[in-house]
């Protein structure tokens, strides 16, 4: 069906992609080189190659422990990695679950207050967090959700909802209405049609939306550092921030930490993009 493009064309495509990959990898490779460097001699260099390679920084970051008040030793890094994953996955699940029905309603129904609601959702993205952080703290305090992962997840999820709604609404709008109508002619209720027909077709979009929510929660540290009062509840970005002090920064350990922190996200993206391709192959869109 598809003809293989000509050789020069393929070569050109790969050339462009390789250049783009070089552009996107270069700064990250500097982070990698710093993480594995035993010394950091200041001299201008073009290639990110570790100096006196060592695994020491990595070991120190990953091996971080602390002694609990009861005398037991806790593997702090493992604990914080778990926190990060739990918080970010919950955020993605909760955020997407909240956003899906709303996005569907916006795509399919017309109702009173719809236009105003959409505008309000967009408006929430415009107000910089600098002025709303302290009121948020007060609200969470009133709800007794300070210093809890639940509170953090609720904040992250609510913050991610407006964008998730926009993403999903567009995806639902792209799905032909005929699909649901056919199901409803066959005797399905509106909700069954939504759940059994629309959701499976929208799976790629849902996966990407969940990924967005996951990433924003996974990389956030200002709110996490403000809301959490217990080192065994901290998420990884908070741990990373600790390498930057008042007068000095431990760049090698910061870089090593950054590297470790980024790995799960890359793994996840790899999985989700498989899902993307699978969703595409299931071919619901063909109608």
């Amino acid at each position, binding site marked *: 069906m598809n003809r293989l493009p000509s050789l020069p064309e393929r070569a050109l495509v790969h050339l462009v992609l390789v250049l783009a990959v070089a552009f996107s990898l270069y700064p990250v490779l500097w982070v990698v080189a710093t993480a594995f460097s*035993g*010394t950091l001699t*200041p001299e*201008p260099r073009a290639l990110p190659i570790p100096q006196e390679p060592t695994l020491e920084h990595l070991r120190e970051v990953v091996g971080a422990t602390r002694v609990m008040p009861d005398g037991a030793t806790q593997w702090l890094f493992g604990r914080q990695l778990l926190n990060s994953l739990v918080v970010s996955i919950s955020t993605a699940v909760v955020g997407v679950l909240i956003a899906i029905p709303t996005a569907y309603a916006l795509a399919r129904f017309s109702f009173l207050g719809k236009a105003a609601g959409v505008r309000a959702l967009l408006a929430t993205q415009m*107000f910089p967090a600098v002025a709303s952080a302290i009121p948020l703290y007060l609200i969470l305090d009133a709800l007794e959700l300070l210093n809890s992962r639940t509170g953090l997840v609720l904040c992250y999820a609510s913050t991610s909802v407006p964008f998730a709604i926009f993403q999903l609404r567009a995806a639902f709008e792209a799905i032909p209405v005929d699909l649901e109508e056919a199901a409803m002619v066959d005797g399905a209720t509106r909700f069954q049609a939504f759940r059994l027909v629309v959701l499976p077709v929208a799976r790629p979009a849902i996966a990407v939306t969940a990924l967005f929510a996951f990433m924003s929660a996974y990389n956030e540290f200002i709110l996490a550092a403000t809301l959490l009062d217990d080192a065994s509840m901290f998420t990884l970005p908070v741990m990373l921030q600790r390498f930057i002090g008042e007068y000095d920064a431990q760049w090698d350990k910061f870089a090593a930490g950054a590297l470790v922190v980024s790995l799960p996200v890359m793994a996840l993206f790899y999985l989700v993009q498989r899902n993307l391709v699978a969703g595409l192959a299931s071919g619901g869109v*063909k109608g």
Partner: protein
Amino acid sequence: MLARLVTLFIVSFVLLVGAAARAAEPIRLWHAYRGGEEQALEEVLAEFDGAPVETLAIPYDAFGSKLAAAIPLGEGPHLFIDSHERLGDYRRRKIIAAVDDALEAGVYDAVALRAVQLDGVAWAVPLSRKSVALYVNTALVDEVPTTLEGILALQPTLPPGVYAYAYEVKKAYSHAPILHAFGGRMLDDDDGFGFRGPEAEASLRFVLELVERGAVPPNADGGLVTNLFKSGQAAFAASGPWLAADLSSELGDAVPYRVQSLPVLEATGLPMRPFLTVEGVMLSPHGALRPEVRALARHLASPAAAQVRQRLARSVTARTDVPAPADDPLLAAFAQQAELAIPMPSSPAMRATWEPADRAIGKVLRHQAEPAEALEEAQHRFDDVRRPPPPPASPWPILVLTGSFLLWGALVLVQRARAPELRERVRKSLPAYRYVAHAVLAVGVLVILPLVVGAATSLFAGPAGEVEYVGLANFFEILTARGGPLLATGSFYTVLLVTLLWTVVNITFHLGIGLVMGLLLSRPLLRLKAVYRVLLIIPWAVPSYVTALAWKGMFDQQYGAITGIILAINDLFGFTMEPIAWFSSFSTAFTANAATNIWLGFPFMMVVTIGALTAVPKDVLEAAEVDGATRWQRLTRVVLPMIRPTMMPSITLGAIWTFNMFNVVFLVSGGDPDGSTDILVSEAYRWAFTREAQYGYAAAYAVLIFVMLMLGTRLLEGTRNRWDRGGRGGSED
């Protein structure tokens, strides 16, 4: 009204939950220590046999704001360890209490004791004294000259690439020893800007000459000073105990060094006196009430604890009854320097000096102003930040206005509710409401409510703790550029123009690169597709604060990777390109920021493009091909119009997020040169966090940003709908 409501519920909450359940709780202690200092603290706490203690190590960046958020609610630590120079600010915000009987009488160094006192009352129990001192690389230098000029005169005798004297030349904190040696000061007795006059100007001219003679690295920050000294590229360095900690954890061959007091300035005959920071234990108001908390504070400051800190953290004690260990010359050197150091003023005004002073030094070193001129400008900046808050306004106009507005709204609602069509519409809308209810609740409580309260704070001003309602005065001040010229650097209008340019440039590149990559990666028969996709997503997968700092490092004029590339190209092709001083002019600094942000943002648009393309049915493309459309026609007339509705929300949101992209600007250029690359949101952050915590003023900026973006998106929507006649536009019903 809102503020009163909020206060009401805070008060009742504190009364209900706060006081009642405290008695049996463990003591909470917060600190920002790492490494040896943290280890010492743990050991000291293990010896404490009072109530159980829970410690929390907080990132330094989050320390102040966390204290300010938690303590007024009766939450947060019972005691914490911080530097004395914050006492004035903390006392004003009522987040500390007098230490009372936690302080032992007659055992503290007089200077340290005075440093923790305000109006004759002690507000912290002194633990240790910190200042910078002189590090000497003993492999490069045999005999240490007694004067700074003597040290600089060694420059010609040093190997190439080695600096005589490394310090953070652009930081007012590190400039202070030189300023003091010229007889100048940062803050005068009445909390006015002291960095003026002939002494200050002479100190700047002196530093300018140091840099021009190549005796001092021109762009060093703390990390670079450390690395220069560690790698033997600096014969002397002015740095604090943290450098020693870094050197002792060195993996390979350590640099042989010793520490001594900073030298004398020959020009004046005065010693270089650094700023002294006294670290102490501070008690929160609710902590100070508990005797066992005060007992812990005494324990932390005890002679035994001081010895542990000497051994593990190598910090200079503030006590006079604990002798320095005889076998630790490093500790002895820092103790000697501490005797000579000048305690940093603890008044809130001190914190307002740093930003103007740093900028003035930078401007002089870039040859963009004479010292006198730069310092005069700094004084204006300082006075601008320290200006008195606007007079309180009567709250009646806004109360009457809000009241009548609510009344009018209620009347209209009642009237319309009577109309049968409306009831019919509500009834028809009910099924949809079931789908949206939980989103309305979540976004309403945790996003919109904080936002409305935040917006309301823009009507208030004054130092934290004594906030008054001032009406629209904050907005008036911003929009009139606080009485200065409307298009001066840092005025609302200039910053708005920079922000607009920033947004347009970024979105253009994000969309351009994102579309091309998305289209290429969606080619059906592309090999290695999965590999490319994952590699191209990486800029977005690594936390942005990490990569923003990596980019900043790459843009370093002297040692950055871009300079490395330029030199490598010069070598390979025999060119003679000069390294670029990225942060010395607006255009290059703006380019550096934009390059970083374009790099960070294009993967998002790429993923959105790929997502949108999956929804384009293949048969549509095939049909177009059969109809004989060329590729370009297929792209511009079929594919792009089809993916546009899916992408439009992401583009709009991308533009909004870029408009408010604070991270990159703050971390990469930091506003350099001279605040010219700041955008509105980073300006707002500065008012909230570095300029005396003027939250009301920052909130007014936030409201203005909000209004700009509302107008902007409305305008765009209007144009789009006009363009879309006949198309499937106007989906925004």
